């Protein structure tokens, strides 16, 4: 796992791995997969809380578990910035990772595709492919979104692209 910072690596190794290889069109096995996803997410959230780094909340937005929404936070210069997050589970999941979106930041950074999909490093997809199907949503957040926030939010704040909600007169962030 070269190219990853040590914190991310050590956190990742503690998130439970998933066993069922099932996508959203696989009926009962998908239900089983969803249970494993929730288990991993709960474990990851507990870990974050005990490390005083509770940085996201997500839940399924539909009963099939194919759309997820939530919020994430990033602290920069002692201020906490909050962003909505959302993503769909692609049909070829878990071979392909979900594309996490932060719609409020769409157009504010080059490290983003249309609709607010975050642009991941070159290391992410090969690592995901190598570990399929053991990685799930929790791993995508840990390896994808967390490093992205750490890299981009400081730049966006320092350059004035986003303002903290206490400063902003209009709602440029949450």
């Amino acid at each position: 796992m070269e190219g990853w910072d040590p914190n991310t690596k050590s956190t990742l190794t503690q998130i439970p791995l998933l066993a069922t290889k099932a996508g959203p069109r696989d009926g009962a096995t998908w239900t089983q997969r969803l249970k494993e996803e929730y288990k991993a997410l709960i474990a990851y959230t507990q870990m974050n809380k005990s490390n005083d780094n509770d940085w996201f909340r997500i839940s399924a937005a539909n009963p099939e578990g194919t759309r997820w929404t939530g919020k994430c936070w990033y602290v920069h210069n002692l201020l906490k910035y909050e962003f909505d997050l959302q993503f769909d589970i692609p049909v070829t999941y878990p071979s392909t990772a979900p594309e996490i979106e932060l719609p409020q930041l769409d157009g504010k950074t080059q490290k983003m595709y249309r609709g607010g999909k975050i642009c991941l490093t070159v290391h992410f997809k090969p690592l995901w492919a190598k570990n399929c199907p053991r990685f799930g949503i929790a791993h995508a957040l840990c390896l994808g979104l967390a490093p992205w926030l750490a890299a981009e939010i400081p730049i966006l704040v320092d350059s004035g692209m986003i303002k903290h909600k206490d400063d902003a007169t209009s709602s440029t962030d949450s």
Partner: protein
Amino acid sequence: MLTRCGIGRLLLYDYDKVELANMKRLFFRPEQVGMTKTDAAVHNLSDINPDVVLETYTLNITTVHGFETFISSLKNKSFHPTEEGSGVDLVLSCVDNYEARMAVNQACNELNQTWMESGVSEDAVSGHRQLLIPGETACFACATPLVVASGVDERTLKREGICAASLPTTMGCNSLKDYFPTMEMRPNPQCSHAVCLERQKEYLLAKLARDAAAKTKMEAESFLATGIPLHADNEWNISVVDDSELEKTDARGSGDL
């Protein structure tokens, strides 16, 4: 090009909108910025050839909902009811990301649909093109293109069950080096897609049946050839003899003539 050739029907799938940045590559016009790419495409293509039936789907085929619509649109045979297989002759993938290619691969494996995949490198001087026939050639998941495209060390991308030796190291054209290799990619018997494995089995069975039928036909034809003589009469009494018999007749001397 297909429109100019007068193809009967084209189905177009794209969820994006036209932007100014597209102008240098895609065949849209600046006044179409803001339109969906599907609407703009229909507009331009129907100007070129009004006889082509154009169907558009402004959706993302990687979502569950989009994918279901994609599959059912391909299966729809109302345009050509007597056609065997799915409702289309060929699927052409001109997408710009791995996830969409995998979705197309999944759909085509399920529908046993031949398709072509293509891509261009970031530096725009090389590209690749691949023909995929489910079961007969490698499917898109058989040989992970992440090895091919990114040049990352194969060891980091090795998936369970894939023999790295069977992965091509380059494919396609590199215009700076004037290099255009082509190679055959056979299916991976340990492909991660269960449907691909099914198609491989079907293809092998069908191939066995085809080969057996071809062999029987060949044997039947050669039998027919030996059974019927080419000439009805044999005026000079020409017959085929063994080489050893020939030596004995020579030894008798030439006085017989």
